[in-house]
C-alpha cells in the first residue's frame, strides 16, 4: 500500500514538473510567434513603403521626361506604325 502511494506521489511530482516545463515551452513558443508576427507586420509595412517608392519613381511625368530627354524618344508617326490587318486583337490597357 505504502509503495503504491509512493509511486503515485512520484508520478504526481513528475507530472507537475512536466506541466511547468511545457508551460514554459508554450510561453517561449508564443513569444517566438509574437516575434515572427511582428516581423511579418514590419515586412508588410516595408512592402507598402517600397510600393509607394516604386510608384513615386514610376510616375508618368517622370517616365515621359526621361523618355524624351535622356533617351531621345519620339512618338512614332503614321509611317512608323504599320498596322496588322484584322486577326490579332491587341490587349486592352497593358
Amino acid at each position, binding site marked *: 500500500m505504502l509503495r503504491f502511494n509512493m509511486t503515485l506521489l512520484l508520478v504526481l511530482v513528475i507530472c507537475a514538473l512536466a506541466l511547468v516545463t511545457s508551460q514554459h515551452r508554450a*510561453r517561449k513558443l*508564443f*513569444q517566438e510567434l*509574437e516575434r515572427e508576427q511582428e516581423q511579418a507586420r514590419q515586412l508588410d*509595412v516595408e512592402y*507598402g*513603403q517600397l*510600393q*509607394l517608392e516604386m*510608384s*513615386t519613381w*514610376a*510616375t*508618368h*511625368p517622370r517616365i*515621359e521626361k526621361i*523618355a*524624351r530627354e535622356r533617351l531621345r*524618344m*519620339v*512618338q512614332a*508617326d*503614321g*509611317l512608323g*506604325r504599320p*498596322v496588322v490587318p484584322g486577326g490579332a*486583337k*491587341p*490587349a*486592352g*490597357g*497593358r
Partner: protein
Amino acid sequence: MVVRRRPQRGHRYTESPVLELALQGWRSRTVGLLLMAALLALVARAFYLQVINNDFLQEKGDSRYRRDIEVSASRGKIIDRHGDMLAVSTPMKSIWAIPGDARTMSGEQKRQLAELLEMSVRELDGKIATEKTFVYVRRQVSPETGDRIAALKLPGIHQEKEYRRFYPTGDMTAHIVGFTGVDDKGLEGVELAFQQSLLGRPGNRTVIRDRRGNIIEDVGAMRPPQDGKEIRLALDSKIQYLVYSQLKATIEQHQAKAGGAVVIDARNGEILALANWPTYNPNNRQKLSGAQLRNRAITDTYEPGSVMKPFIAALALEQGKVSVNTQINTAPGKMTIGSATISDSHAHGVLSVAEIIQKSSNIGTAKLALGFSPREMWELFDKLGFGQAPNLGFPGEVNGRLRPWKNWRPIEQATMSYGHGIAVSLIQMARAYTVFASDGELMPLSLLRVDETPVRGTRVYSPQTMRELRLMLEMAVQPEGTAPKARVAGYRVGGKTGTAYKIEGGVYARKYVSSFVGIAPISDPRLVIAVMIDEPSTGGHFGGSVAGPAFSQIAAGSLRALGIPPDAPLQVAAAGNGKGPL
C-alpha cells in the same frame, strides 16, 4: 566489569503514570474549539477574499500583468484600374512629451532630440514649457527617426504610431482622389465619398505580459483588426496623365483661367480620366485656394453652347420631322423671335440638317427646336440627365439648371437648343454624349471599375438615328466643319464644338467657355471625351481651335493606350512631329 546503570528517571512510556490519569474533559474541548475557531477564521477570510472582495483583488492582479492592446488597422488603398497606387497609408511616428518630465533633459539630450526632429532647441524648449501634461512635439516623423529617438531613452519623451496618407500621383489625380485630414477622415473626392469602406476598424486583444514586458499569453476573446477596403477606381492612370498634361498645356497656351476634361468608356460608363486645372498637390496642402480645390468637371456648371445642338438634331430626326438631307434656310444669318434676335457667327444660307451640325448654325438649330413643344424638349433634356445630379456618389455633384418647361418662352426654347439658358456640368455633358457612342443608350457613370461589358443604359434615341448622328459629328471635324483640328491620325473621330458666352452679373460678357465633346473611334465607339476651357484669352476662343486640338491629342493617346486598332489609314493626317503623347 560493573555496568553502572544510569539512575532511572521517569518511566517507560507504557508504564507512564500519567496514562493512568483521567484527562480533564474541558481541556481537550477547549483545544478542539480553538482549533475549529482558527479554521473557521481561515475559511471566513478565504471566503472574504475569494468571493466578497474578489473583484478588487482580481483587478489588482490583472493590473500587474494583464494588458489590453489595441491593434491598429490601416486605411484602404485607392488604386487605379490596373492597380497603380493613387493613395496609400504608411505608418509614421508622432513624438509626444510629458512636459514636466521632459524638462529634466540635459542640454545635450535636448540638442540631440532637436536635431533629429529638425527643429531648433529654442523651438523644442517652447513646446515643453507648457503647464499641460501632454503635448505633441512633432507629428508624423519617419519610423527611422522614431527609432533613433527611442534609442536615446529621453525622459518624458514618448511616441505613438500614426498613419500618413501619401498620394504618389500628386496633383495629377488630386481632384478625383481627394485627400484626408488628420485621423483618417476623408475630406474631399473619393476619400470622402468612400470613407465608410476605406476606413479600417482597429481590433483589440487582451494579453498577459511577463516581468520583462513580453507578451506570453492571449487571454479572453480577441477582435482582429479590419483593414479598410481597397478601392479600385475606373481611372486609368496613363490616360489620366495624358488628359492632365494636355489640359495643362492647352490652358497655358491660351492663357485660360481654368479648365476641365473627362474621358468616359462608352461601353460601360467608367470614368477613365477626369482632370481639372488649376489643381493642387494633395501631399502638401498649405496655402490652398478654393479655385484649386474645385473639381470643376463635377461641381461647376457652365452654359454648354453649341455642344447641345446634336441632341436637338437627333430628336428632329427621331420624330421623322426631317431627314439628314432636309434643306433649311439659315439666311441671312439673323433671326428674330419675339423681341430678341439670334444670329450665326457666319451667315451660311441654305444648309442640310447634317451641315447645320457640321457648321454649327444657331439659326438652323433654333428652327429645328421650334418644331417641338416645350414639353418634348424638356423631356429630352431630362432623359439626357440634365438638371439632375449624375449619381456618382461624389461629394458636391451639381444638378445643373434646367427650368420647368411650363414657363419657357419661344426665344428661350431657341437659345436652349444651342446651349444657352441651360447650365450643365462637364461630366453631365460627357455622359449625355454616351448616347451617340452606344447607339442611343445613356450610360450610368461609374467611378469604380466595372468589369462586365456592355452595361445597359436607358434608351433615349434609336440606333438608326445615332448612326446618322455619328456621321454628322464626324463631318464636324472635316476641313469644312468647325473643328478640323480635332482630327486624329489613324482614327475616325467625331464631335461637336461649343463656344459659349459667359454670364457675368446677369448679362453675357465677351468672355467665353470653349469646349469640345467627341467620340472615338466612329466605326465602333469606345471613348467619350469632353474638354472645357474657361476664358481662353490668347490664340482664339472658338471651341474648334482651343478645345479641339486638346481633344485630338487626348483621343490619340487614349486610343493607343487602350490598344484600339485604327479604323482609318494612318498616313492621311499624320502630324508626324513626334510631339504627340508617348
